[in-house]
């Protein structure tokens, strides 16, 4: 009994040491595990989601009527907006024709992807999606939900990829303020989202939209990121930073879209 016990303990301890101190081995093991158990992970993640949905539904059943009214109003508003957008698109295409700017659309193709694993510990803003190199996903691609940027691809494997959320301290995105066109860097962290490195004489409007600037070439320009919040730093410096209010609730993400380059 003693020998077999020591054998098992030593075997696992050796594996831990190998996994911890050899990055290629860890990478191969992680990738292999996701390849073998990827389907199982998807099934159990789906079960978890549907279970949570059912519980949430039961707890929020009383809010449904109120939400229904709100949504009806929003639909009406969206219909009005849509008609205005259609008008603007027509006007825009006419202007493009006149100016001779009829190049290819900058918009990339969106690939739908399912979240199959979340970081089991609470504070790291990473998750794994079921699309990888086989689906032509590349490192740095934008991850979008409802047309809003929620993260970017951090690591790509054959049939899955690791996504870092914009709220993560490891995330850096090149952004711009939509109206005043000032450029900056979007950073996540413990105190929330911030747009930093904005030239101090920039006049920022309240609730101004923040979009990707396209600088750095990793993702295209014009993807909505959030709204401008409070100015954080003293305007007497060279740069100032502002708080950014996310438009999407990042804790409820399930199906996201990855922009194919």
């Amino acid at each position, binding site marked *: 009994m003693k020998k077999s016990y020591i054998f098992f303990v030593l075997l696992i301890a050796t594996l831990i040491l190998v996994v911890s101190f050899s990055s290629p081995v860890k990478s191969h093991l992680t990738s292999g595990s996701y390849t073998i158990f990827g389907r199982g992970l998807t099934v*159990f993640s789906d079960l*978890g989601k549907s279970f949570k949905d059912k519980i949430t539904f039961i707890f929020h059943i009383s809010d449904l009527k109120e939400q229904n009214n709100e949504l009806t109003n929003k639909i009406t508003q969206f219909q009005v907006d849509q008609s205005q957008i259609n008008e603007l698109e027509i006007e825009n295409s006419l202007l493009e024709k006149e100016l001779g700017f009829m190049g290819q659309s900058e918009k990339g193709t969106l690939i739908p992807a399912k979240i199959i694993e979340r970081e089991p510990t*609470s*504070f790291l803003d990473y998750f794994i999606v079921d699309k990888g190199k086989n689906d032509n996903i590349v490192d740095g691609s934008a991850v979008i939900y409802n047309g809003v940027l929620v993260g970017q691809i951090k690591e790509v494997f054959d049939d899955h990829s690791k996504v870092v959320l914009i709220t993560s301290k490891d995330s850096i995105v090149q952004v711009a303020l939509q109206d005043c066109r000032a450029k900056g860097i979007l950073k996540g962290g413990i105190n929330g989202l911030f747009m930093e490195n904005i030239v101090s004489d920039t006049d920022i409007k309240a609730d101004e939209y923040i979009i990707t600037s396209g600088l750095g070439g990793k993702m295209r320009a014009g993807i909505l990121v959030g709204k401008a919040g409070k100015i954080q730093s003293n305007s007497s410096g060279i740069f100032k930073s502002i708080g950014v209010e996310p438009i999407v609730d990042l804790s409820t993400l399930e199906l996201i879209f990855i922009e194919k380059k």
Partner: protein
Amino acid sequence: MIYFKYSTLIIVSFILSFLDISFFSFLGVYGATILSSFIFVIIYSFADKTKKDYLIISLSLVLFFSIFSSLPLFPILFNFFLIPSVITYIRKYYLPEPSLIVSIIYFLLATLLFEGLLLIYDKAWNSAGFLTFSWFIFINTLLGLFAYAFYLKIRKRFKTFEIKL
């Protein structure tokens, strides 16, 4: 038989860590999720008669979380190896077997240390971080308590059955 026992413990550890990163990771409250593998290893360190088999589970969990999680080795070792080892040590020399009431203190302290380390490691000492921290302790202590009560009930029934025989 011993090989079968240890292999079973490793497989159970794998299944629980697999459930933690898939099924339970979607059942979060304010970012706090159920960590069934942690609850399992804590209960096993209470209940393990040999006072050393828990090490197989503990090390297996360290291995699986090293593979699946982005966390470095130190916090994983601390949470899945050191905490159960300390519980086993206390059991061995001070409190032979915790009652249901005493187990609450164990679960509270274990989950507090577990999430506290992650809170410090990720420097997440803001209101959202503390909310997650509190919910993690509450959820996992409560579930740990239920699981331990269930284990005690099953064991009691099994013992009665043995005596009757």
